[in-house]
């Protein structure tokens, strides 16, 4: 990469940071408990809209994993989720009624909060339907991982988005508040992913899985991206570019080995396809607040009316991280 390209990326990074700085005004602190944050705390950043039903399990899952503080942006919820979050002693919550789309799908808001609170901390950025799995997560807390990453001078950790789905119609099994969503969406596609390298940002671009198989059979290039770098030892100069798919400076995107070895990596179990999804898809379609004019949701809405069974004969049922590692969806790298 030439100096010019490098300079352009630098400018772009500054631009996102300035944009985040401008967008800070859209956020109103509802419960600011950030004074509780201690040195070395692991922070979780998220945006949410009307996810009340998911929040209890989501918070519990990451508390048990060892997240110390949650910083959440509420985008105009009307299902009581804001009130619920306000009551949590380890959650700081900001409210905004502004456009999700114009904050680049929440990235600007979170970039601002990260700029302000995350430097020096490990920052985990996930949606309420994403559950991080990393090597040894059944026996070692998240801090074991971040300590090891620190000791190995690694600043960012990759976790591919793995779409989970139920067997049978999506609306067949109702999700109860507080329930582990993996009990319902326990199936995934093990080996139908396409990976390409993005020369500009240095990240990998991964597509595939059930969404590509069912909704984007004829237009695979339009299928959603599955590569994510959700866990980063934050510094003030960092900025996410597009969701957590890409981050600048680009060195943080080099979460993969290019010489044939395997770096340690995890998976984000994506439990979007619960019974709540059909309703959500229709709602999002109306709001048109999602990526690429909600092309994804358009595709869902059409296909879902016809045959909402993502399950096939070759679907794998989720067991544990070791299974994912054997299948080649994540790796222990040199962590043992």
């Amino acid at each position, binding site marked *: 990469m030439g100096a010019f390209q490098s300079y352009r990326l630098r400018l772009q990074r500054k631009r996102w940071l300035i944009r985040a700085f401008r967008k800070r005004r859209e956020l109103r602190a509802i419960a600011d408990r950030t004074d509780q944050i201690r040195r070395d705390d692991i922070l979780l950043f998220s945006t949410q809209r009307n996810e009340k039903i998911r929040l209890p399990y989501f918070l519990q899952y990451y508390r048990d994993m060892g997240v110390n503080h949650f910083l959440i942006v509420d985008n105009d919820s009307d299902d009581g989720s804001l009130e619920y979050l306000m009551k949590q002693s380890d959650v700081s919550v900001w409210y905004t009624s502004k456009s999700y789309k114009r904050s680049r799908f929440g990235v600007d808001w979170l970039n601002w909060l990260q700029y302000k609170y995350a430097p020096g901390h490990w920052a985990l950025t996930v949606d309420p339907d994403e559950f991080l799995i990393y090597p040894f997560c059944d026996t070692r807390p998240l801090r074991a991982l971040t300590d090891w990453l620190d000791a190995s001078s690694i600043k960012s950790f990759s*976790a591919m988005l793995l779409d989970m789905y139920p067997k049978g119609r999506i609306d067949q099994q109702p999700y109860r508040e507080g329930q582990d969503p993996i009990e319902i969406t326990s199936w995934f596609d093990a080996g139908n992913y396409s990976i390409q390298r993005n020369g500009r940002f240095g990240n990998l671009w991964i597509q595939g899985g059930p969404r590509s198989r069912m909704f984007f*059979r004829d237009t695979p290039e339009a299928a959603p991206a599955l590569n994510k770098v959700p866990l980063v030892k934050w510094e003030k100069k960092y900025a996410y570019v597009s969701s957590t798919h890409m981050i600048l400076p680009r060195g943080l995107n080099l979460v993969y080995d290019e010489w*044939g070895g*395997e770096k340690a990596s995890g998976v984000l179990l994506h439990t979007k396809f619960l019974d709540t999804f059909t309703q959500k898809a229709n709602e999002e379609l109306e709001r048109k607040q999602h990526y690429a004019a909600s092309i994804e949701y358009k595709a869902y809405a059409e296909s879902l009316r016809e045959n909402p069974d993502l399950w096939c004969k070759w679907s794998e049922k989720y067991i544990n991280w070791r299974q994912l590692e054997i299948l080649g969806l994540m790796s*222990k790298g040199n962590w*043992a």
Partner: protein
Amino acid sequence: MSGNVGIVMLVHTALHRAEQVARHWHAAGCPVVIHCDKSTRREDWRRFRDALSELPNVRFSTRHKCEWGTWGIVAATQEASELMLADFPEVRHVYLASGSCLPLRPVRELVDYLQDRPRTDFIESATTADVPWTVGGLDEERFTLRFPFSWKTNRHLFDRYVALQRAVGFKRKIPAGITPHMGSQWWCLTRQTLSAILEDPERPTYDRYFRKVWIPDESYFQTLARLYSTNIESRSLTLSKFDFQGKPHIFYDDHLQLLRRSDCFVARKIWPHASLLYESFLEGKHGALNRTEPNPGKIDRIFSKAVERRTRGRPGLYMHSRFPNEGWDNGVTCARYSVFQGFTELFEDFEPWLAKATGARVHGHLFHPDRVEYEGGQSVINGAMCDSAAIRDYNAKAFLTSLIWNTRGEWQAFQLGPGDVLGKPLPEGVVSEQKTPQDLSWLLARDPNAQISVISGAWAVPLFKSNRNFADIRKEAAMLQKIEGEFLDVLRSPYSKARIRIWTMADFIESPMEPLQTVIDEIGHNTLRRLTEAPKMADLTGFGQFLQNLKNQGMHPYLMGDFPVVHDPVGMQTRPRKPYLVQ
């Protein structure tokens, strides 16, 4: 009694754990001298010292700044050892440990062990030529260059200065009388040896020299012990495993069983939050001290596998933390497979026949333009790969490598032909290996796992049998011949690594059994078995005339070899219409 073994402890973080371990040593009767890194926060250090001050046989030595790879650690060790030898005259062995070391066996056993070997120094010590473990290419040069810049905080200057010294051919002189040795930082030396090193009249010379050696804590005592020890056992009593960057592996709660069976006295490094390990080994909870069958090799295997995974990975796997550049991948695909071109055209029942003869999984044309022809016409197969041609063409390399990865343990075979698509151009802005439609043929050709068999020109058989206008046939024949010709050029290039066999159609039908036998033997399941049944060949009566017609129309079919115009091929005339047996 146990006062015979003194512990020198170097600590810098997780002081509460260090305190726990120090108490443990002390309770077993071992005097302890502690050095705490100067960069540890003052209030933490005070609290730590005050907590331990109630113990009579614990001392604290002067604090030094111990940056990794620099002299500080050696200076700290020297002073702490001097204090140990001076204050505790009954000490016979000094054991150097860190704050993150954990005794795995009762201290009693260590004391007894050392008592039985009163003259032995346990220190890993090998000459630079013999050690494979140095990282970063600095082995002998550790001793002959200067290292005034910090590796951790000033890597750029560090590297530049090394490069400069190499360029001008600078070499430091090694003091007379010593031969540089290296080894684990964690040793256990006898009073005799240790005091001889510390009281050596030449010590200022050695210290001055080692002060500028790279990572002196791995060479100072290791070198000087060679001068004085009467009985060196070159191994460390501390179990310590290093990863590929030279950083120690860390032990967690889930290593409990492994550590129990390691049979080592002390292990490092322990994660400070590994409560189960500390409770088990220090407080004897969870039955840790029940002796189990020692199995120290298992730890070695686990950690060397981790290094292997990080450096070589699983060949043929492409995922979000392993995406090798082309040519650096130590294996394009993960298992061997077969590609057949021209066989289904020439034989009517080739696929079922091949499946029966080899036990392999035989697919149709995986790269058919309309859909992926998986075995048995399935629409989804292993790994939930679907039969969409668009998805396949979007990333043909991912398609092929995933297919082989998903079906590992089972031999895959598929048909290929000049009418198939081998990838298509990617959207703008995406950098990838395959840019032109035929680029997948390069992937196949350079994959040592691929076994590619081609009967060239066999694509003409379906044309010959088809009921189409001759002008169309001629046009299509010209196109197919061009594509196959290019493919054959790729296969014949000096860069190809696949097992490649190419026959012209004329050659092949002369004696089809022999090539078939060769190809099938490689597939391996039915080794050492002669083929008894041949696939049924298409009826080629009139094929020679067909080729002649093409020639008469100005096209030049050459890939199929020489077919006589009038007489049909000899092999064909004698061939019975039903399958036959070969003895």
